[in-house]
């Protein structure tokens, strides 16, 4: 009898609690979603009405509907998708190279005794150098080809990834490290089973920051150097006084940025499902 009552009681208790909690969680998520949507609708309304009511000059601030209509026209052209594709290619290539280089350099510095202290000043000197300082150099090397953008992105994104790798390496649990040493882990085993799980969340933060920065630099390179892409579209539209089209391209750049952020966060949550920082991160406080 008692053995029957125990599990069923336990089962009830376990069911009742999450149900109430999840209901409240659902309601709170719905509320958050609704207020977020309200914010966006409000912004869209302001953008539409301000020029129409004459608060802003329509030739400088075209209403949202005009921009969206133009965007619809653009989306039917092959040129537009070519722009989107080249910007994406530059972004992806630069980010991938920077991530791989950042991981390699981070592990090399982290696993070589003393390397961190000797490289510290050099990293601190090179990191704040704005990547746009490389623009004239890459123009000389690659002209207006897309590789110019790839080099700029790689330089800027590399430091983001490397820095997070170094933070992560400093964060490795000393007990875990000493345990691995007592068990005579090989160097590869140490990296795979001790360093890598600690590094992964840091690496993701670095890549997420780098991804956003890479898009900025991809657009910058297209605008300043003139390689094919969204940035080039903005500049050409502005030079030919096509205000609405310039806004449409800026909107596309913003949407790409949002998509990159959302994708990076979703990926982070998925791959780091096992990690405490993701597991315990419940709703908003």
């Amino acid at each position, binding site marked *: 009898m008692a053995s029957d009552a125990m599990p069923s009681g336990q089962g009830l208790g376990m069911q009742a609690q999450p149900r109430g909690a999840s209901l409240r969680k659902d309601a709170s998520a719905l*509320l*958050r979603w609704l*207020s*977020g*949507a309200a*914010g*966006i609708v*409000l*912004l869209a309304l302001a953008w539409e009405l301000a020029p129409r009511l004459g608060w802003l000059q329509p030739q*400088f*601030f075209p209403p949202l509907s005009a921009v969206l209509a133009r965007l619809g026209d653009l989306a039917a052209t092959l040129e537009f998708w070519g722009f989107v594709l080249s910007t994406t290619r530059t972004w992806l290539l630069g980010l991938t190279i920077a991530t791989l280089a950042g991981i390699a350099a981070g592990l090399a510095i982290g696993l070589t005794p003393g390397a961190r*202290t*000797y*490289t*510290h*000043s*050099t990293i601190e*000197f090179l*990191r*704040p*150098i*704005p*990547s*746009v*300082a*490389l*623009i*004239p*150099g890459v*123009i*000389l*090397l690659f002209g207006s080809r897309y590789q110019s953008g790839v080099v700029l992105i790689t330089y800027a994104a590399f430091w983001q990834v490397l820095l997070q790798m170094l933070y992560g390496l400093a964060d490795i649990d000393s007990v875990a490290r000493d345990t691995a040493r007592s068990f005579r882990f090989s160097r590869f085993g140490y990296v795979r089973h001790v360093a890598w799980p600690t590094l992964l969340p840091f690496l993701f933060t670095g890549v997420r920051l780098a991804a*956003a920065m890479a*898009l*900025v630099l*991809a*657009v*910058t390179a297209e*605008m*300043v150097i003139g390689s094919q892409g*969204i*940035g080039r579209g*903005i*500049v050409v*539209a*502005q030079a030919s006084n096509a205000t609405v089209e*310039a*806004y449409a*391209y*800026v909107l596309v*750049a*913003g*949407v*790409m*940025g*949002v998509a*990159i*952020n959302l994708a990076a966060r979703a990926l982070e949550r998925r791959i780091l499902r096992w990690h405490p920082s993701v597991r315990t991160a419940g709703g*908003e*406080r």
Partner: protein
Amino acid sequence: MIRPALKKLFIELALPALLFALLYAMSASSTNFYFPPLSTVLQKFSAIWLGPRFFSDVIPSLERLLAGYLLACIAGVALGLPIGLSRGLRRAAEPVLEFFRAIPPVAVIPLLIMVMGFGDAMKVTVIAAGAIWPILLNTVEGVKAVDPVLDETCRTYQIRGLARLRHFILPSASPQIIVGMRLGLSIGIVLMVISEMFAALDGLGSAIIYFQRSYEIPEMWSGVLMLGLFGFALSMVFRGFERWALAWYHGMRHMEKKN
């Protein structure tokens, strides 16, 4: 006494000195038009940037940067505080802010040129409009994450309004706000250079692009070097500011780590 200090200096300078020597030696016999010897670049550097150009190009750049950056700091914190303090406002504003942050700030340069022309006002606005987002978002995050126990303590003692802001909210959010300010500064420098490359008669960005277009290659590299030093110097200044402003915080963290 002196030994450890000397050793530390050696550690700091060993790799940079090695790299510099390597670059110097490797480029010394360079006949490549695009990559002149480092010695030539350094000569040009002292002739150009330690001379009148420092006042006619570096100082105007610095002024624009500071004007735009300070504007971004003030506006970012002023807007971030109410958004961070009110949950309803935060929920409504978050997606909108995410969108604005995601727009590459350089993309608005052509739009601002259409509205404001090519003057300094446009450049200052560009710098402010790009640097504000990390400051604003980090202020929101910092205010959101204040210690709940301290929050309730404040409430118990009826500390409200400005006193609460001044003695509780701002100090506890300041480490996060300063992270945002550091990010904002590097974005600001990038935007300063780009906006000058687009449209300016003076400034670092316009000087570099001028040298590049007129194929004065050693001069161009000396400008790149100047820009690198400019970024480095500002990040040093900022680190000094951070150390001063967050001395209490780093001290606290240090004590916590010791225990």
